């Protein structure tokens, strides 16, 4: 039940709203924290975030600084270890996860890519959810021709051959991370998520509190913004988590095909190892440090966001809660 | 008259994260052969918990922690699940709240009843069961030809009749009807109530009718138990309950109920709200809303006593109250 009562008249609307938000955050956190899988996901994400946003800059400025390390370069994109006789080299004290076929440090590549994976995933998911929420609620609310148009569009987007399209597109324009996030965001925004959020908005639309606001003279945009969107928002947020997973995964696939114009990413690490012939036949077990770290990173981070989504599901869908 | 069901000091608690919910806390009553008892109470007072305990259909976190439920002398609290399965339907049948939705939409209504019969009486052949269903249809006022229809082809009232027929299928000794007419319109409700009373008398069955609506209870029950916050506060024959109520809650309930019959009296309200059953207090649970509450009522729980023959009340001040009522009315 309610944690602490917020009493009194309007001290200031903003502070009250902040207090209310904090209170509902605490309540929801309590439910979320009961889901083991969600908490596990959150921990994995936090560890990755620490590694990418804190550990990497520190390492790059200290031990991995070119002047300090002498001949050994740790630059993830251009670095080459001259002290190493043969590349790729297995893990050693200098290179905790070994080097890649071009003599670059695998750990440095891994850490360097982490913030970029986050940025891509979250940007793509934000765009998806923004488009999906607006189109889903508008379609549901107005119905009729508007609804039919957007739903048929969603059907088309869902059936759209995504990967072949990107292969062709990559031949025409340079796809960097930002553009990729935009493309993924647009395509999934008009696709599946719209259908899900629309059906949620349909449920909200027929609630008596909508009629109650209409009786007071509320306009259609007012109803969508003030009543329907806040009630589909939790679901949007949930789907955002699943979309982060989708975006990171798509990036890995596209990098693996070498279709993206990016300096370094987990997918690209595997691509480099693969094109140099280290992931074929018996090599796959021998040169494990080339594909296992990026592969595990992709799996873990995608899985972690999915787990968070599962945990949020219990917050958003009360029927899943065990009481 | 022999007792079909004797409930003695039944205690059924739910354990929740916030604490114990004492949904039934020391419930005692007897239902005799051919008698219909009404169980009245507001939502959350534990009336459905009582019926679920009798049927032994308990939620995972619910447990009968004390008392006995004697069905024809046998304590069903102690029965094994397989033994209890034999008593359900054949001994005690139940008509649930929103029973109309309990029919499976993809099977013919008649077949669902036949299936229930065959499941409980393996010796019966399909043809015999079908004949029995036809009889039951006639009994509840349905055309036997409608047996081969699907539930969506029935109206709300017809579905309710079919569910009653289903509950009668194995000739139970006791029927528990839990708000069976709540979702129905008045005219249909009236027909179903009449039908149910008629069948109950004709078959000399016992019935427990659970409702929040005292007007409906007045129509069907000979004996009435009033429940409040997990306890029976008053139990007697229908006329006594309506004409000489002794517990302040019963008095309040009677005078707050609008009627279309007779003089238009002023409605009296019971102040406050029904209490939460969670971590219920050790004093009289009606005390916070009771106009007659004294210090005693805030200190201990009043005993459930027979203040006159067949009139049980759990209140420290029933007597003077009764005088007051008889002076006024």
């Amino acid at each position: 039940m309610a944690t602490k009562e917020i009493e009194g008249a309007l001290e200031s609307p903003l502070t009250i709203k902040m207090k209310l938000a904090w209170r509902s955050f605490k309540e929801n956190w309590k439910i979320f924290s009961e889901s083991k899988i969600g908490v596990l996901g959150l921990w994995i994400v936090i560890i990755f975030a620490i590694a990418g946003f804190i550990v990497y800059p520190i390492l790059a400025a200290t031990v991995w600084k070119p002047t300090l390390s002498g001949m050994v370069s740790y630059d993830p994109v251009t670095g080459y270890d001259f002290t190493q006789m043969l590349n790729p080299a297995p893990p050693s004290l200098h290179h905790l996860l070994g080097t890649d076929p071009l003599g670059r440090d695998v750990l440095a590549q891994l850490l360097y890519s982490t913030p970029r994976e986050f940025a891509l995933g979250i940007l793509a998911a934000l765009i998806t959810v923004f488009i999906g929420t607006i189109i889903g609620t508008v379609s549901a609310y107005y119905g009729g021709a508007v609804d039919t148009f957007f739903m048929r569009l969603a059907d088309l987007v869902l059936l759209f051959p995504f990967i072949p399209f990107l292969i062709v597109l990559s031949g025409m324009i340079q796809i960097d991370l930002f553009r990729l996030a935009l493309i993924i965001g647009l395509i999934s925004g008009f696709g599946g998520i719209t259908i899900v959020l629309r059906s949620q908005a349909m449920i909200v639309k027929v609630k008596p509190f909508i009629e109650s606001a209409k009786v007071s003279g509320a306009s259609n945009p007012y109803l969508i913004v003030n009543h329907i969107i806040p009630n589909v928002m939790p679901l949007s947020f949930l789907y955002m988590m699943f979309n982060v997973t989708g975006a990171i995964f798509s990036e890995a696939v596209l990098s693996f095909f070498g279709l993206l114009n990016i300096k370094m990413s987990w997918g690209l690490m595997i691509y480099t190892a693969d094109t140099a012939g280290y992931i074929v036949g018996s090599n796959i077990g021998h040169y494990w440090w080339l594909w296992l770290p990026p592969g595990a990173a992709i799996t873990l981070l995608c899985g972690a966001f999915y787990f968070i989504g599962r945990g949020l599901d219990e917050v958003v869908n009360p029927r899943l809660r065990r009481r | 008259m022999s007792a079909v069901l004797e409930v003695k000091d039944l205690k059924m608690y739910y354990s929740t994260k916030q604490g114990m919910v004492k949904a039934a806390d020391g419930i005692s009553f007897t239902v005799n052969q051919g008698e219909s008892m009404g169980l009245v109470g507001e939502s959350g007072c534990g009336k459905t918990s009582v019926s679920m305990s009798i049927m032994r259909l308990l939620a995972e976190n619910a447990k009968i922690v004390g008392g006995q439920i004697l069905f024809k002398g046998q304590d069903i609290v102690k029965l094994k699940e397989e033994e209890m399965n034999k008593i359900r339907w054949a001994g005690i049948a139940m008509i649930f709240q929103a029973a109309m939705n309990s029919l499976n939409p993809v099977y013919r209504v008649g077949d669902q009843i036949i299936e229930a019969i065959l499941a409980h009486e393996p010796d019966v052949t399909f043809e015999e069961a079908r004949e029995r269903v036809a009889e039951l249809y006639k009994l509840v006022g349905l055309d036997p030809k409608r047996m081969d229809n699907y539930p969506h082809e029935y109206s709300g009232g017809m579905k309710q009749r079919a569910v009653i027929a289903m509950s009668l299928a194995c000739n139970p000794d006791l029927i528990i009807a839990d708000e069976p007419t709540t979702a129905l319109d008045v005219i249909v409700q009236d027909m179903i109530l009449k039908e149910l009373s008629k069948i109950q008398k004709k078959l000399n069955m016992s019935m427990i009718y659970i409702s929040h609506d005292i007007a409906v209870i007045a129509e069907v029950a000979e004996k009435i138990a009033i429940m409040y916050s997990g306890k029976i506060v008053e139990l007697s024959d229908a006329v006594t309950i309506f004409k000489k109520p002794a517990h302040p809650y019963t008095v309040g309930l009677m005078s707050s109920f609008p009627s279309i019959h007779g003089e238009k009296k002023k409605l009296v309200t019971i102040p406050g709200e029904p209490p939460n059953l969670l971590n219920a207090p050790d004093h009289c649970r009606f005390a916070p809303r009771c106009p007659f509450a004294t210090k005693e009522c805030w200190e201990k729980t009043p005993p459930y006593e027979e203040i006159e023959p067949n009139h049980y009340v759990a209140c420290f001040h029933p007597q003077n109250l009764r005088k007051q009522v008889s002076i006024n009315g």
Partner: protein
Amino acid sequence: MDEAKSAVAQETVLKVEHLKKFFPLRKSPFSRAKSFLHAVDDLNFEIKRGEVLGLVGESGCGKTTTGKTLLRLYEPTDGKITFLGKDVTHLKSAQDRKWFHSKSQMIFQDPFESLNPRKTIFDIVSEPMNIQNEGSLKQREERVMEILKRVGISPPDAFLWRYPHELSGGQRQRVAIARALVMNPQFVVADEPTSMLDVSIRTQVMTLMMDLIADMHMTFIYITHDLAVARYMTDHIAVMYLGRMVEYGETEDVIQNPLHPYTKALISAVPIPDPEFKRKSLQIKGGIGKAIDPPKICRFYERCPFATERCGKEEPPLYDVGNGHKVACFLYEKDGK
């Protein structure tokens, strides 16, 4: 009607003439409607200031549709609605809409569903003022506190920042009433406002509403299926059957002396909280249907125990049998005007 009495202070607030609301039945949003559900069919009545009109009938009789059409949640198919002397049937201009919506309100059946679960009590109660841009934040706050206190939510400041799920059913319905009355509406439609509440809470809410109606001189339409509740809440009753008004009159008149066979059946079916009273109910055949493109005959014809050949050929008009008691049945042709 009592001419002297009505001439004094009783101003007609709402006048409804030949109101019709038909719903097209379509197979898909693009096909043309072949048939229509006549949810409300040719309704005529007027309500004076401070008067409570009860719309009673079984589910599907059109009573809720009538209420919602009057509040313009549905566009009327035909007819005329006059509110405070002004034609509000179509509300073409934004100014008219604002005027009408700030003076009319609705109370819903389910007190949980009619309050947005993600809004606080302050947001919910002040929303009508917010939509109409009425008053400053400070004024809104004062008004919300005042009205919450009036409906028995006390102390109001302890409830302002709670969410609906933290309130009990009775409190929620009080909040819904506060919200409806926050702008001092002149006309309120209440759709079964007590049917989801517990017995003891129901009486509290009924008493509160009766007090408020008397205090605020509101014109009220009380929609209910429960005649016993209607008896206590209303001054006049209109009994509806399949979209048509079959009987209208003063509440006690209709309850004590029902004329239409349907009203008789309805009243005789109401259970009486008295075990010694033996009701005699008027049995009628069949169940309530749906008025889909109904023929021009009496809609109760097939179920009526008194039906004559004529009832199956023409539609009975409303006959006035005196004291404003009107009934749509040929049995009263001689008594009526």
